[in-house]
């Protein structure tokens, strides 16, 4: 098991390096630092001195890969690639355009992101499974048909509609919770409840429909026929046999997103003014803060790879037939 984990971690390394190279190419080779400086300072009438100043403030005034003017090992390390990309592996992300340390900012903002993302994940999963189970219990009836129609309708509505509509109805008309904002501690609840409900509603249509298909597929298996032939009641078959077996693909499929919960949700956080990593990313995109976007891409990929690893482990936990070796 441990050997397997170590091997998987070693496999993850080339992928992270690949992500790093892609982001580096995207940010420094597609456009030179000069282009970025001109864009940030405004295209017209930029003096070369202003561009040089912008670059040296951010450490972009070095060669890309090989520094001839430096001595010894600095030839490799005193470059943009080393300073901006290699250091990310040591979780050193440098400073944002407003001078703040990105790594510190990230640790501060993880909390609020998690406070919203975790209930969304748990409640969303629970609600979708319950709803799908209900549809399967009443399968091939008008109730099932109406439920599927509802699911398709709900997944055809833009996520923006849920957010804007929810804010308008709950906050503006009913005055139940504040429209946006955030507070520490228990008072966070009143700010968090609406974003959570909105996200769960926005996601339930597609996931409930998908889970329903998984449940129905499970129903065609032989063990279900055996259970019925043995005289078990339909309810017992559904809850003791079908539910348990169908939960394996559902839960293992959900595990992959758990680490990425740290990243929060861009849209929800931006709309509801939650100071998490999602809104941090949005602000960085709007301010064209390249360093922050680069850092977020790296962290997001690393967390996704952790998620893949967790998925593998969770397979062995729920399905005794699978052994990691």
């Amino acid at each position: 098991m441990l050997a397997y984990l170590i091997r998987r971690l070693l496999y993850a390394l080339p992928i992270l390096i690949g992500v790093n190279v892609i982001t580096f190419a995207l940010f420094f080779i597609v456009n030179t630092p000069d282009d970025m400086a001109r864009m940030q300072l405004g295209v017209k009438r930029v003096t070369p001195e202003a561009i040089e100043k912008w670059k040296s403030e951010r450490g972009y005034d070095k060669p890309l890969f090989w520094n001839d003017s430096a001595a010894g090992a600095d030839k490799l390390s005193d470059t943009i690639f080393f300073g901006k990309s290699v250091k990310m592996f040591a979780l050193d992300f440098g400073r944002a355009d407003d001078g703040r340390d990105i790594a510190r900012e990230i640790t501060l903002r993880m909390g609020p992101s998690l406070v919203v993302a975790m209930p969304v994940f748990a409640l969303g999963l629970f609600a979708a499974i319950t709803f799908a189970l209900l549809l399967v219990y009443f399968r091939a009836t008008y109730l099932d048909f109406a439920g599927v129609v509802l699911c398709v309708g709900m997944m055809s509505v833009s996520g923006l509609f849920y957010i804007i509509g929810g804010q308008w109805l709950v906050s503006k008309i009913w005055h139940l919770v504040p429209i946006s904002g955030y507070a520490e501690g228990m008072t966070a609840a009143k700010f968090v409840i609406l974003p959570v409900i909105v996200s769960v509603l926005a996601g339930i249509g597609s996931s409930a429909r998908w889970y329903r298909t998984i449940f129905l597929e499970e129903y065609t298996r032989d063990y279900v026929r055996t259970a019925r032939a043995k005289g078990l009641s339909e309810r017992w078959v559904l809850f003791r046999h079908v539910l348990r077996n169908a939960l394996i693909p559902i839960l293992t499929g959900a595990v992959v997103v758990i680490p990425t919960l740290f990243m929060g949700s861009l849209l929800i956080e931006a709309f509801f003014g939650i100071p998490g990593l999602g809104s941090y990313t949005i602000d960085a995109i709007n301010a064209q803060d390249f360093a922050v976007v680069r850092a977020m891409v790296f962290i997001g990929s690393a967390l996704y790879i952790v998620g893949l690893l967790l998925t593998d482990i969770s397979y062995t936990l729920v399905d005794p037939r699978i052994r990691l070796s």
Partner: protein
Amino acid sequence: MKLVLLWSDILFFLLIAATVAGAVVASRTEHLRQCWRRVGQSRVGMGAAAVLAVFFLIGAVDSLHFRPQLPDSPQGEPRYSAEVLSALDVLLTPLRTRTEKTYSAPLATHLYAKETLDDAGRDFPPLQYPGTHLFGTDKVGQDVLYLTLKSIRTGLLIGTLTTLIMLPAAVFLGLLAGYAGGWIDDVIQYLYTTLNSIPGVLLIAAAVLMMQVAIDNHPEWFATSAERADARLLALCAILGITSWTGLCRLLRGETLKLRELEYVQAARALGVSGTRILWRHILPNVMHIVMIAIVMDFSGLVLAEAVLSYVGIGVDPNTISFGTMINTARMELAREPMVWWSLAAAFAFMFVLVLAANLFADAMRDAFDPRMVDR
């Protein structure tokens, strides 16, 4: 007038031509005809197809672009307006030109806000074209129905071109990885795992930011602002495509792995048929249903994604009329007193109809083409 052929127009008409060609081929092959007959038997599917056809017709008419001749240009050397119009603009001339001063409610006769009038103090001024704006007018007095109809083309382009741009690469790499195996398989798998592990929104954000830098630094690339907006739209399609081709590639790889071991492929190989020919003649036709299902299944998600991305500021050019830009400009209007709800409602309603039709049609197609579904 002078015809303008934007890149997206060319691709859109190529797409329609390819669909027609595909239909001709399908009508000659027996098993494809059978599949389409199954689609035709689904009443919901055909209803959805009819709605989609109307949307595509609007999109096609909106893709015939031209620059009108200026009325005061001298004889012999005509001068053309910098504004690029489409055939749809001509058809909708009454909607396009009947602008008001600012907001007005659907089918209203008076403006939304009171103004100081010359004769009788403050009152709601009458509209210039009362009762003609089915969905009201927006902040600068443009007809909302006109804006929603213009948004359709953007949505359709994002929904279709995105999948099509990356389709050749996804199919080629997927088949190659599955058929060749060995180190080729490893390299391709590494490629898509790496791309896949970057969170989609962030990769799109990074790529769009970089594209903006490139476009802003090279204004000389584009003759008109329409061309610039078009280039940005296509670039967005390409970027979205890069983030979404990995799923299809993986599916195709898996299917090819399965097909490679089947008797008819083994027989072809034993008879000395070359690898490329086996891929082209024997494997590709048998994975085409996966490709088609992927195209229609991705469509609705992409239309929805466009709205979100444009809201975040990494979508289409702010001057391109799209559902996303409409929602983005309209979202603050709910806070007004009295509320301005009609632009938002119109954008969401049109988007809902388009996406719902696409979802229903995709389901009908999947049921008809997926061999696993046929038996049930």
